[in-house]
């Protein structure tokens, strides 16, 4: 359990999930979405508003899109135990932490499970002492992120999890580069590129 998870105040809603197809279109929603909608807003959850539509059409801000695109790319490229990370969520009704569990299934389908949890905002602020004035360096090919403090490339889920990066306001910007490992791989494939 992470330091953050150990300081969670309480869960707001039951854990819920949705599935995405390989084009990132919503496939299904777990029943908890309907229960939450009724309990929180007094209205039925409208699945038809989402099913068949692209996940990214419902995100705002290039940084958030970039992070999810990178996570999805990593998941589809590396099926296995999945990814788990905590993100800041600035919902209209409650500032909270979103704990995401992402799993890759057959045919590049993804299952995203999420918990919204409340955390004391003062606790949150004290948990993120870093200054993100400088953009984070992301490898455009493997999506690893360069950790300036340890001077190493980290897998995105570890980098974001370790840095609590998305719990900051504003979300830091990213600059795109090529990590040392991918430089070697890509340059090694030079003969396979045009002209050959």
């Amino acid at each position, binding site marked *: 359990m992470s330091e953050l998870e150990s300081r969670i105040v309480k869960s707001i809603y039951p854990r819920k999930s949705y599935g995405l197809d390989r084009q990132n279109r919503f496939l299904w929603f777990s029943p908890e979405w309907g229960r939450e909608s009724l309990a929180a807003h007094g209205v039925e959850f409208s699945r038809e508003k989402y099913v068949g539509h692209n996940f990214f059409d419902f995100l705002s801000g290039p940084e958030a899109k*970039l992070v999810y695109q990178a996570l999805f790319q990593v998941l589809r490229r590396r099926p296995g135990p999945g990814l788990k990370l905590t993100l800041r969520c600035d919902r209209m009704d409650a500032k909270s932490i979103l704990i995401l569990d992402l799993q890759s299934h057959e045919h590049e389908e993804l299952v995203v499970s999420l918990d919204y949890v409340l955390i004391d905002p003062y606790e949150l602020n004290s948990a993120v002492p870093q200054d993100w004035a400088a953009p984070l360096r992301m490898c*455009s090919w493997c999506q690893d992120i360069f950790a300036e403090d340890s001077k190493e490339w980290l897998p995105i889920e570890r980098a974001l999890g370790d840095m609590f990066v998305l719990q900051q306001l504003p979300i830091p910007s990213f600059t795109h580069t090529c990590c040392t490992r991918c430089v070697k791989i890509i340059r090694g494939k030079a003969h396979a590129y045009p002209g050959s």
Partner: protein
Amino acid sequence: MHILVVDDDQVMVELLQYFLEEEGISVTTANSPPEAMNRLQHEAVDLVLSDLVMPDGGGCRLIESIHKVQPLLPVIVMSGYGSQDFNYPREQTQGFWQKGGDINSLISLVKRAI
């Protein structure tokens, strides 16, 4: 064929320079829009390949600046973000390449634009 590659990330600049030169294209590089404009004043180039997200005004301002002084000079833009995430003057560019994509497609884009 002579290309100006503009990116604030030196690793990207060197990587792109390597592949373009493999294709027999000569490359000049710049790490910022002001440096790029300075290069354009002193060198004749056939195309500009520029990152969109950079300090000093970024790629969008660079496109506008180039358009004012050399309106016929082809410009290809690139970014790690998606093209739909930017409001850049598309009519003044000859294509978009997403970083992390196939470098083959970038080379094709460059050759088509010139």
